[in-house]
């Protein structure tokens, strides 16, 4: 069943988890595929930065007068769940495909939230837009690496 009651707190927790899980995913990839280690570690680091930036922005701008309980009404977080479980036998190409899928969902999530959070404060929308942009660039890089 779609969970249609989504408060700002839930959105931020979801975003935090999304970035943390992505960070762990890329760290795992870095260990499994030593040839692409540096690139994957850079992606992991980027996820960490997104996580810190989103949580910090929310905490620095949230106010009791904002519509935090109502701005994301109808948003279904299940649409943006990512799969970070890597198959034991996964090839580099397979892992890259999985990463591209994950990035596509993350971009969609960050863009949707950026749009929906415009009724809060501009800084929150901007933080999500920035996260969407970094994810979009990463997706393009991953796609270019696919054989």
């Amino acid at each position, binding site marked *: 069943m779609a969970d249609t*009651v989504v408060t700002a*707190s839930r959105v931020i927790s979801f975003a935090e988890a999304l970035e943390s899980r992505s960070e762990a995913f890329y760290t795992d990839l870095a260990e499994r595929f030593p040839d692409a280690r540096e690139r994957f570690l850079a992606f992991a680091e980027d996820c960490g930065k997104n996580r810190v930036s989103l949580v910090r922005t929310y*905490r620095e701008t949230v106010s009791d*007068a904002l*519509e935090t*309980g*109502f701005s994301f*009404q109808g948003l279904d977080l299940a649409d943006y769940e990512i799969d970070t479980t890597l198959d034991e036998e996964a090839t580099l190409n397979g892992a890259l495909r999985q990463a591209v899928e994950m990035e596509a969902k993350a971009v969609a999530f960050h863009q949707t939230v950026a749009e929906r959070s415009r009724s809060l404060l501009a800084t929150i929308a901007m933080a999500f837009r920035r996260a969407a942009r970094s994810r979009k660039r990463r997706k393009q890089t991953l796609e270019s690496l696919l054989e």
Partner: protein
Amino acid sequence: MSILEEPIKDVLNVKNYVDGDWVDSGGERKDVVNPATGKTIATVPVSTTKELSRAVEAARDAFPLWREVPPLARARCMFRLKELLEENFEELSRIQTMEHGKTIDESRGETRRGIENVEVAAGIPSLMMGDYLEDIAAGIDEYLIRQPLGVFGMITPFNFPFMIGLWFAPYAVATGNCVVLKPSSEDPLCQTKIVELAEEAGVPPGVWNVVHGGLDVVSAMLDHPDIEGICFVGSTPVGRDVVAKRCGATGKRYIAQCGAKNFAVVMPDADIERTVASCMTSFYGNTGQRCLANANLVICQQDLSDEAYETFYQDVVDAFVAAAEGITLGYGLDESIQVGPLRDPGKKERVVGYIERGIEEGATLTLDGRDFEIVGDLPRDAFLGPTVFEDVTPDMAIAREEIFGPVASILKARDLDDAISMIHANPFGNAASIFTDSGSLARDFRYQVRCGNIGVNVGIAAPMAFFPFSGMKDSFFGTLHGQGQEAVRFFTESKVVIERWF
């Protein structure tokens, strides 16, 4: 359902903080109960007047040295306090939810608002500066300096247990005064935690004291000859008939921010969807226990035909009721919750009394908050759902009196002037909002309405820390307000020096 971890695991034994020490009180103890779970999370002392006097003495004794500390050094204490509050941001927010009942988003918002006051007070070297004018007469210069006064008493309410103490204390301390603060004994934990952090930030013993208690402590504060001024936030009868009168009699300056009955006026050109979203937070956020909450929704006909007005009216009401019906109630630490319980079952009973009165007076109960569902297995004692009344007239008690709960009264107005007349006929003057696409109507509203805080397409007209928290009529007694530059002026005396050297 995802419930955040509770920061309070055992029942806390709350103490007074006097002269840099945590001291037990000889008075009785009261339970502090989490209104969502019904569990006792702390016990707080009902201190004696003697214990209050001891705190005032400590503050008085600390004052001469503290005022000599350079403003820059006092500002650094504020910077350190700000950093400590940031480090403890999440814990402080969750404590608010546990002791008050509000949702975690609301608590974090309150924490932010409180911290912003500490940030503003950290600018005290600039804010406290005086003025200087040379040659007011031949060889004579004149200048103004702002000096701290001594000890200030602060009495804070239950509805914002973290933020309201910070509307005042940081400014008082940064300007070189000392404070004795009495938090609401219903939810005293945040103020206790703040003073613990103030100590860690380097605020010396005696400068920032916290004494828990009830009416005896308040009364002793009002009469104490060593207290120069009082900051009070609470009900109008106490603010007007007790605080203002007693401070007048004893020559104290005072800020008394009191009750409210706020109107939201919706014009035909308003964006209904965004207006309703804004109204949900305003009418039902903090479970309606907010002096800036809107309580009366006035839907204006203005230049619409009768038929068009009926359609517009119904569109607004339908959207409002649909949104209110969809609100989820439960424990504020559950991130899916939009509205928490009232502070305690007694407060719920009072609000239910108003719902019954509204029915008796002939209003139509469109949405009955007494019939509600809660997420989770929680006692229902303090919960109450969003309520909507239609066919309300300005003379009814539900439209006139402060309910302080999740009850919306919908009224009709012929035009903006009619709506403004309704606002002016009400004794309160804390806040009012207009929802419109017309700059001209918004300007008229802002210009004419006698309320201290005006919202234009904003449901909660809450001033930021660098603006005064205003209020008029029965919502405010005093001259200067809390927050920002006005707070700096309240906590200092303007001394003028006229100087000539032979």
